[in-house]
């Protein structure tokens, strides 16, 4: 047991704040950008940051103190009960890809909008209303 792990166990509370807190903060920041930034690309960036936050939350939830990556490399064949939860990691892989797809699509829409409106200000996009 190295010193890092000792520190970790002692300050588990702190780590919780660090990991969950950062993840939630990322969601927070992303949402803030989505809700207040006027530039379309910034809004899309906000969405990506949100995605990142959620993904981090996924990975954080799957973590188990002192456990290792869920890979049965040579020498770790019987270490199944010493591994972290692999399911959130698999899910996060899917979530990342989907996040990427949405971001790409969003950017293409931004390009399209910019071509038509000659501006990327989100407040200018209100020809459809009521």
């Amino acid at each position: 047991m190295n010193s890092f792990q000792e520190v970790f166990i002692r300050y588990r509370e702190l780590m919780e704040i660090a990991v969950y807190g950062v993840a939630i903060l990322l969601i927070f920041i992303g949402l803030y950008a989505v809700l207040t930034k006027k530039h379309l690309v910034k809004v899309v960036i906000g969405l990506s940051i949100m995605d990142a936050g959620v993904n981090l939350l996924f990975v954080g939830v799957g973590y188990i103190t002192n456990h290792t990556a869920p890979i049965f490399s040579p020498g770790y064949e019987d270490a199944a009960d010493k591994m972290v939860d692999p399911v959130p990691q698999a899910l996060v892989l899917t979530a990342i890809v989907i996040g990427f797809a949405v971001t790409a699509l969003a950017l293409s829409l931004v390009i399209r909008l910019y071509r038509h409106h000659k501006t990327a200000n989100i407040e200018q996009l209100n020809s459809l209303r009521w």
Partner: protein
Amino acid sequence: MDIYVALLILFGGALVAFFIDDLNRRWTGPVALAFALAAAVAFALTPEGQHLRLSILGFDLHWQQDSAARFFGWIVLGLTVLALIYSVKYMEGKARLGYFYAVFLMSAGGMLGVSVSRDLISFFVFWEIMTWTSFLLAIYNAYYGVETKGIKYIIFSSIGAYAMLTAIVMAGHYYHTYDLADLWQAGAFSFRSYWYIPASLMLGFAVKAAVVPFHVWAPDVYAKTPMSFTTVFSGAMSKMGVLGLLVVLTGLYAGGGDGMFWFRWILGWLGGITAVAGTLQAIRQNDAKYLLAYSSVAQLGYIVTALATGTRLGLMAALYLAVLHAAFKGALFMVAGAVEKQAGTTDFREISGLIKRMPWTFFVALVSVISLAGVPPLGGFVGKWLLYESLITETHSYFLVIVIFFSSTAAFLYAYRFLFGLFLGQAEEEIKQVKEASWWMLLPMLVLAAVSIVTGMYPGLIFKPAADVLAGWGLPVPDWHMSILLNRWGNQVDLVTVGSTVGVVFVLVAIYITLKGRKTTKWVSTKDISTSGEIPSPQDNLTFQRGFFKPFERAIGRLYDWDANGIWEDLGAALEAFFGFVRKIYTGNAQTYALYVIVFLVVLLIFARRIFG
């Protein structure tokens, strides 16, 4: 013959008529007529008392050919057949005939269905069919403002229909049945248990019967629908409201008649007010069609008042007037249609003196107007008599009698206006070419006029089926005689004597006038009467027909300021403005939309336990 045959014939005929129009436009009318006749035959052949029980979606539907079904069914089918005979010529050369006849037949089918339905589900289904088909006919004439006014009819009808629907689902919940007989048994329409069930049912029926303040849809619709359908519209469809009210009344009687007092009071007065309002409005109309339309509203007011008494004579009066109103108002709308078809307009300011051009039409108009005014010896008189008698001797509502009496006296004014405006007076140059209507149009008019004449002498012809209706549903039945009216003090009137005396006098006078001829004088145009000191502009039509009853209008002047129509229109405009304001929440800004989502989320999070706890 099974009970559904007549209905199937009508609805099938609608389909056939719709598609046959594409083949040959000339066949559409006769084919529709043939189907209506076939339906009438089928209806006649259906034995009394036959039941039909269906199950649809687990609801038991119940149709019955009882005396009420026959009574109202014949009003519907009789008028439909006559109106279709009339339509063949009246609608000749108009556009969208397939549409017209198909919807006409469906509408008749809906009304017939309402007449035979003895459970609330099929009653409502047919009621709605009748409503939307009649709406499609009401907007048939393209010039009618569909965007605003045309929609008024369907909105009011739907308010009524949905009030009914509310009552129906609630009744279904509380009593686990939709069958009328069971509901009557269970006292579902009593005001004691769930007062809103009968109340909202009656609201629904009152709207269809055009009772104040829900009458505003009626004048426009009656006047603007093609006259051949207005006949049915005013003559038969409004009677479906009467049928409905009768259904509720039956329930009240079955439940012992408790809690009836205020219902009787309110409905009776609403009927009285309707009668007065309709009459007063009719007096100042300048268009024969509008005059008749308002008059219809007023007549329905009498019927509703009669029903509201809920007494033996009152119920009899209501049923009797229902038939008579169908007869004379049907005939009068046909007259208006004939004049419109032949002379091009029904505006009093445009035409006058048609008597020589259209003598038969005039005869029908004369008979029907006399019957409408309730003057002996024609049928209308008997109905009025019964109404007064029930109000005076049975419910002692003397104020209401005064109101009704005022209204039916004032009705003389518009009755005269109608006759004079269209037929009497001096004939203008431009109507010299007008010809009498086709015999296909005159025939149904004469039949309807005959009903007024015959019932004037033998009202028992209608008393009998009406008494059957009342007896069949367990309502009180008065004594009745074939041609003798009784009153409480034992006096009696022999209607045959009265009728034949008046008839002989009428014939003698007619012969005298025909033989003597009328004096011929050089008259000036009625449309060029000099104004006292005022300078008329060229557009002014200076006929004396303008402001015909000016003094009368002046006398009751302020009453006209109460315009229910305006109130409803303001309400509608206010609602639309409100809706227009509400939809501004869709601002078009993507960020605002995202903000809505987050606000919604946060509200849910804050009140989480309250909402989902």
